[in-house]
């Protein structure tokens, strides 16, 4: 659900429905009772591919030792602005 224009969609929950149209309607009924959303997406859970928790370390490890991808890695003279 996207709560306002300009924001991205975030996950709010799951539900059962016989098809996508009813899923959308059910999602409206369950998750937007207090004006929480401007836009709803529904996706069948079978369509989601998830990273595996067992592979967590090997899967995400390549990023762990690449500190040079962060701005804070670089020393810049103090008087420099807008950098």
């Amino acid at each position, binding site marked *: 659900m996207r709560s306002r224009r300009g924001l991205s969609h975030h*996950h*709010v*929950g*799951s*539900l*059962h*429905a*016989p*098809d*996508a*149209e*009813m*899923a959308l309607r*059910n*999602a409206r009924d*369950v998750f937007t*009772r*207090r004006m929480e959303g401007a836009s709803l*997406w*529904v*996706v*069948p*859970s*079978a*369509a*989601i*591919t*998830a990273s*595996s*928790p*067992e592979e967590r370390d090997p899967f995400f490890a390549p990023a762990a030792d690449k500190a040079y991808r962060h701005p804070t890695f670089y020393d810049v003279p103090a008087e420099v602005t807008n950098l």
Partner: protein
Amino acid sequence: MSSPTTASAPAPPEDGDLAALARQFEGTIAADERVEPRDWMPDAYRKTLVRQIAQHAHSEIIGMQPEANWITRAPSLRRKAILMAKVQDEAGHGLYLYGAAETLGVDRSELLDLLHSGRQRYSSIFNYPTLTFADVGAIGWLVDGAAITNQIPLTRCSYGPYARAMIRICKEETFHTRQGFELLHTLSHGSQEQHAMAQDAVDRWWWPSIMMFGPPDAESSHSQQSMAWRIKRHSNDELRQRFIDICVPQAAVLGLSLPDPELRWNPDRGHYDHGAIDWEEFQRVLRGDGPCNRQRLAHRVAAHEEGRWVREAATAYARKHAGRRSEADGLSGVRSEAGDGGPAGAAL
């Protein structure tokens, strides 16, 4: 039934791997982090969570009954709209919790079977009758109030989907307590008859509400393991005391008394002392011998049976619709997801 998330289940772990996985699980708990659906977890952890979350979900659905009883006889349009919204919220809470339980590899149809056959329970508070409209106020103030006191610590329980469902539920539950308090306040400051009706409702709902927290921990068998796994964060007695301390000053503002002559501030303890709880009654109601046990379950089973045609019609319609759509797209060889009547929806 297969778990709602995708990808095939991982192969069963070897003994050496098992030790490593168990250590990882213990580490997550010790660091006060969340266990998520596809993490490895001890079988007993999974089982106890399925039971607890399912019974919580059942409680929400059964809990709709005592209050729905008064929708057609609410004294004003405002009260009727409020009561309908509250009862609808409870249905939604049940849905969030069935969804959370399903992340542990069960299907809600299994859980409903267990409820309908009496093998899983629901909170015994809902086995009491609602005798007057003031009961709606007493339930909102006391029963939802006790539920919130119990549920706030659960927002930090170790199992992610359950904790997140609790956050959402707690937000919505606050409207429930406030409308109840407001209702009692209005009655209590109204006519003599209205005041008496409010007092009578509180007199009947007070003790059952404080019993909602369960027996003293010494007598509660599951407590210790639940605490070790950080599912349960506080003892039953601690939460009960917290609730009583909150209610006493609120009762004073309501202008209503609480039916416990031994309720008294204890400056040494910094808490209210209270009278002895009749645990015999609690056990009786839990065993099935309360005023409304049979009625509550029968009503639930009837609703499920009588609603079958709606579920079947929706599935048949979806199937027919999908068939027409794929023909129109010229994709008659491809079956759509909707065709098998299975769940469609974002995974938790």
